[in-house]
């Protein structure tokens, strides 16, 4: 067989669901021409748990804790999105202090999520030292979440009507000290790494998508923001975000490096939002009374670390919901991932896939 004939042959390589760079079970069936990706088809379904069905069988107040378990990374934001929806249906006004506490825990979650992802990205191109440094920084975030709520990931603090735990003045000071420490760590580790030759070689100009593609394929979160789309639901002012100085972070290049830049800048932004929230948090109640059962239907949206999560909630006046529907950000970012891969090398597939920060357990629910 001639070299020309061999180079025209196409083969299909199953990438995942078990793969060293994939933290969760996603399979990409890669149609290859030699080392170049021509097409990619996703296969999911390895961790579908039927949580939407389970939600119909639980008391609507229990569902806040169920929602929290949809994702092991952005768990607090799931509980918050759900609680906000039910509170709107039941005309519950959440106390101001609870809204500020929600912002603090939400941004702590964003910090630990981005740091976890940063370590995994480094791991995907063999930068083990950076992986360890990013996760070392993350430990400080998990420790402060444990100190303020009792849980390192599943905080269990957000519920319909507000939050179940307060943070004392000493606790808030402790959070501020951790923010200062993290700021220093980010300067030493994360920011320096962004100028690293190896990191740039593996990310600049890799997995590039245009602003137009990102819009048409419904991209959300840092994936959309890295293409210049100002798409961040925190600008709508939910919880206490309306009282804080906030502007979405965007980059323009649309490649893996730009997506990394967005998340790195969001690390600093989260520290800033936590400091602002602590400076402005009012005294008062943390929980509003919850009476009756939800009736009607509503859609709520919250900005998670990976982008917009959407909750459709329908209540029928009983303690059980008629329907709970969740669309997570990774679900929205799968189509754009398929547009990122063609034309790049097999060795880039791991980095490109990691660059959308895929959360498959979230996606499948």
């Amino acid at each position, binding site marked *: 067989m001639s070299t020309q004939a061999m180079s025209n042959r196409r083969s299909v390589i199953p990438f995942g669901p078990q793969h060293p760079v994939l933290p969760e079970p996603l399979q990409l069936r890669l149609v290859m021409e030699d080392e170049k990706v021509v097409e990619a088809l996703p296969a999911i379904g390895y961790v579908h748990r039927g949580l939407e069905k389970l939600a119909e069988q639980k008391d609507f107040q229990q569902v806040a804790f169920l929602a929290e378990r949809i994702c092991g990374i952005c768990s607090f934001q799931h509980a918050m999105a759900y609680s906000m929806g039910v509170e709107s249906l039941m005309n519950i006004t959440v106390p101001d202090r609870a809204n500020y506490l929600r912002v603090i825990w939400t941004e702590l979650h964003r910090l630990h999520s981005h740091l976890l992802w940063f370590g995994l990205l480094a791991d995907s191109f063999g930068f083990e030292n950076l992986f360890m440094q990013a996760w070392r920084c993350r430990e400080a975030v998990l420790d402060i979440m444990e100190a303020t709520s009792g849980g390192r990931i599943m905080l269990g603090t957000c519920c319909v009507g507000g939050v179940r735990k307060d943070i004392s003045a000493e606790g808030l000071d402790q959070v501020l000290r951790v923010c200062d420490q993290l700021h220093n760590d980010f300067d030493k580790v994360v920011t320096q790494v962004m100028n690293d030759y190896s990191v740039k070689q593996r990310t600049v100009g890799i997995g590039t998508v245009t602003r137009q593609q990102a819009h048409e394929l*419904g991209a959300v979160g840092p994936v959309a923001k890295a293409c210049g789309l100002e798409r961040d639901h925190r600008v709508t002012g939910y919880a206490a975000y309306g009282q804080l100085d906030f502007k979405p972070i965007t980059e323009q290049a649309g490649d893996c490096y730009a997506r990394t830049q967005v998340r790195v800048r969001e690390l600093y932004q989260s520290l800033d939002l936590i400091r602002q929230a602590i400076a402005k948090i009012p005294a008062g109640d943390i929980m509003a009374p919850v009476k009756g059962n939800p009736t009607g239907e509503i859609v709520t949206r919250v900005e998670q670390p990976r982008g917009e999560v959407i909750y459709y909630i329908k209540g029928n006046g009983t303690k059980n919901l008629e329907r709970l529907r969740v669309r997570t950000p990774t679900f929205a970012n799968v189509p*754009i991932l398929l547009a990122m891969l063609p034309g790049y090398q097999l060795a880039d597939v791991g980095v490109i896939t990691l660059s959308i920060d895929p959360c498959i357990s979230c996606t499948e629910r």
Partner: protein
Amino acid sequence: MLENTTEVTVDTLLGEVAIRMGQKYRFVTVTCLDGGDYHEIFYHFDRDYQLVNLRLLLTKGNTLPSITGVFAAAVIVENELQDLFGIKVTDLSIDYGGRLLLAEGAPQAPLNKTRAAEAGTKMEVIEKSTPQGAVAPTEEVAK
């Protein structure tokens, strides 16, 4: 009823979706509810943080035209409709044939309330298919 909702039919769906595309809306997702004899389907679109919805009532047993020809991003969620509600979606750009989320032996259309209620606690399961290339045993061989 959700705010900013327009009623559509199977015949007007694709035209309305194309209008949203022309108006620079972003496709967000599809929500489906089991209403007994019909499915209630919402198509959600966003522009400048404003959500607009199309609402379609689909009698059970009827097919649903895919919107992936207009919004390619709908491919995953329309396959999910096939898996979880047993709705046959026509002209899907990638059709997983009801196997996107569910494996062989999984409950069929598990989010349909009526199906689960009819079957009591035991939901119908997807029959095991013959692996590709394998020949199903004849009655004689089976004996």
